[in-house]
């Protein structure tokens, strides 16, 4: 009678953090797509700049010409806020890993508040750019950069709200702990990519 070896996997877990979970990979490839999108968008920004002798283009005043650089106030405040928002997110991330439901809830609520505040600040940033999207190509590409990033902020904040509702009203199960860790990664990415966009939109016109 012939026999076979059986590899019994019935004791394997259902979910595990990071590289174990397909969701982690799916999220990372989404981020890869979005990263290449932003890379091409930034290339577009510099490509269009070649068509301008002054970037942003000057505006004729009565007696003088004005070079309307984007105002730093709201953008800088937003940058500081976003960088600081990583602190509650890191703590939430860690709490989810060790299974601390209470701490995860608090961290998520703070993170959501940061996300909403960043969205509000962002809406003032458009006004700090002197041009509208339909003024010229400079206006178009800057609005598009700010807008695409805002879209990610919006999706990110919404995701946090959904996960938070789940762990407040339902269970703090492994599946959703993995979700929190994954959302945290998305959060770091949104903040990281913003630092790049902030430097490009607000500072490259000032230097060079």
């Amino acid at each position: 009678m012939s026999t076979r070896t059986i590899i019994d996997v019935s004791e394997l877990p259902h979910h595990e953090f990071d590289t174990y979970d397909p969701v982690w990979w799916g999220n990372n490839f989404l981020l890869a797509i979005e990263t290449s999108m932003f890379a091409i968008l930034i290339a577009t920004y510099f490509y269009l700049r070649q068509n301008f002798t002054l970037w942003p283009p000057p505006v004729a005043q009565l007696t003088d010409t004005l070079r309307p650089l984007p105002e730093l106030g709201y953008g800088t405040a937003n940058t500081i806020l976003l960088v600081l928002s990583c602190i509650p997110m890191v703590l939430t991330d860690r709490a989810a890993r060790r299974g601390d439901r209470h701490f995860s809830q608090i961290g998520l609520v703070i993170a959501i508040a940061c996300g909403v505040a960043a969205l509000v600040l962002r809406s003032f940033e458009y006004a700090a750019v002197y041009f509208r999207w339909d003024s010229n190509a400079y206006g178009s590409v800057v609005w598009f950069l700010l807008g695409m990033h805002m879209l990610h902020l919006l999706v990110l904040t919404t995701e946090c709200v959904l996960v938070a509702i789940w762990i407040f009203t339902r269970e703090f199960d492994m599946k959703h702990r993995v979700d929190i860790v994954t959302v945290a990664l998305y959060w770091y990415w949104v903040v990281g990519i913003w630092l790049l966009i902030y430097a490009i939109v607000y500072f490259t016109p000032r230097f060079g």
Partner: protein
Amino acid sequence: MSDERAKQPPEISTSTISDEELAEVMEREKGELERTWARPRGLHGWLIDTDHKAIALRYIVTAFVFFVLGGIEAALMRIQLARPENHFLSPDKYNQIFTVHGTTMMFLFAVPIMTAFGIYFLPLMIGARDVAFPRLNLYGYYVYLIGGILLYAGFLLNTGPDAGWFAYVPLSGPAYSPGKRVDIWAQMITFTEISALVGAVIVIGTTFKMRAPGMTLNRLPLFVWAQLVTAFMVIFAMPAVMLASSFLASDRLIDTHFFNPAEGGDAILYQHLFWFFGHPEVYIIFIPALGFISPIIITFTRRKIFGHLALVLSLISTGFIGFGLWVHHMFATPIPQMGQSFFTGASMMIAIPSGVQIFCWIATLWGGKLNFKTPLLFVLGFFAIFILGGLTGVMLASVPLDLQIHDTFFVVAHLHYVLIGGSVFPLFGAFYYWFPKWTGRMLSEWAGRLNFWLMFIGFNLVFFPMHQLGLHGMPRRVYTYLPETGWGMLNLIASIGAFILAAGVLVFIVNAVWALRVGAVAGDDPWAAESLEWAVSSPPPHYNFHNIPVVHGRYPLWQAPEDAPVVRGLSTTKRETLVTSVLDAQPELRFEIPGPSIWPLMVALATGVTFIVGIFTPWAFLVGAILAGGALTAWFFGDPNYENRPGHDTEEKSETVVPPGELQPKEV
């Protein structure tokens, strides 16, 4: 085996069981497994079904319908061009038809059908029960379908795009293309690209995490490698065209100035963005087809492939070099000479990995006892046609020559030789090869040969004369020409060829319908092939594999020992599949795959509303975001399998039903 076992994490235990006992236990589990994975019934069931095989077949049938529509458009163009000063089509109709033909073939046929093969066969070839994200998969299909319907609805309402399949500005811009024709094109791009990106993430996720134990990356089938490389190319290439089409749409709808030189915009920027996607796109269509060729050659020569590693490296390097070629579409624009030289060099370099692959395949075929079945015929046809197309490709890489024949029929001939030779011929080979797996029936071999020869002769008759026409100066995209040009004869030959080619496709359709009704029954493995999809029944059961197999080599079925170990312990009451590590395929998780759900359709409809209404008003994006957000929320809060298991409860209960308890280690 022994050292592999040593590396396994402690949760995995091994034991032995007699074949008889195993068969008995499997028989007992079978009913429950079938109920768990059963496909929902009725129209509602059809809309929510997430089985990767069902979705892939829908993709294939839909894409084939678009292929036939695109073919009909091609035939109409050939009728129009058959003789000089023909008035069969008006200039305006002709513009719409060549645009819709190109758009259909590239975006609605070639990319989706290649993805579809991956979605069907990846899980079967790597020993998984479904793809990594089945609901996302269903969403991808619906979005693609909506995009296709949008294009053809526009076309039938005389609002078909008419600025060519790459819709260059300024022609496609608001100044020269008023109306909504180009907007339909731009949003169709959005839909098909979302679908392709979704497909790419699924392909990578599935390949990385769901391979059967033993299938290390080193043993990954070449088909899967090809899909994997393609998926990575999609991830880095598609965002460029999404931006290009979004910029174009926003220039047209809300007066941005990305491509408007009067306000600092740039028309050449559009070409860069489009071709940064557009050239990799060629490889996105072509590389999966290379993945069809290897298994067909292995099966019909009954040999291991020559140079497995060289083939894999060629696929990967094609993927990389493919991103360094885009400017060779733009040699007629003011590009610095240094840039031209760089892209000429890169364009010639791409011939190296292609050549390596062709030589590996020839080495495999060489001296072998070839089994000349239809799939192999199509592969041999691929060699002939693709090499000719590749040669004209190397010619076109040279800037002076390219300038001379830019936008002539020479380019039309080249691109059809590369794409039909490189993709459609292997694809038809793949149809003949895998049709038995899909349907359980064999296609007629006799009709297959007829199909091949009609297509091969017809194809060369249509496109070979176009080289000559191009050299004589006939530009592409003209609706007619004067008798004095002397182009009439070659055009007539091409038009006759088109109908022979079409007859070949018709033979295939008749063959397929005939086979479905009265074709010979195929059995599990009609070709005595080597890869895992042939280990399961034809068509495969909904759960693909009852026991996840353990793989022992690059040719799993040819190298499987009599007493190959099997993986046990996955739930029969939940849709579980095995998740393994990325490099070595060590078991890591019992991952529950989501089952049928209505929400992918709802999110797809919300996406559809967003972008279709977005052709007319930007407010659609606000409304669409709210709709999509609502649908996604419902998607998130739904129980993974709630529609599918009214009788079964959640976690706690099914945990106790897991059957391996019955499978306590027994030494026999």
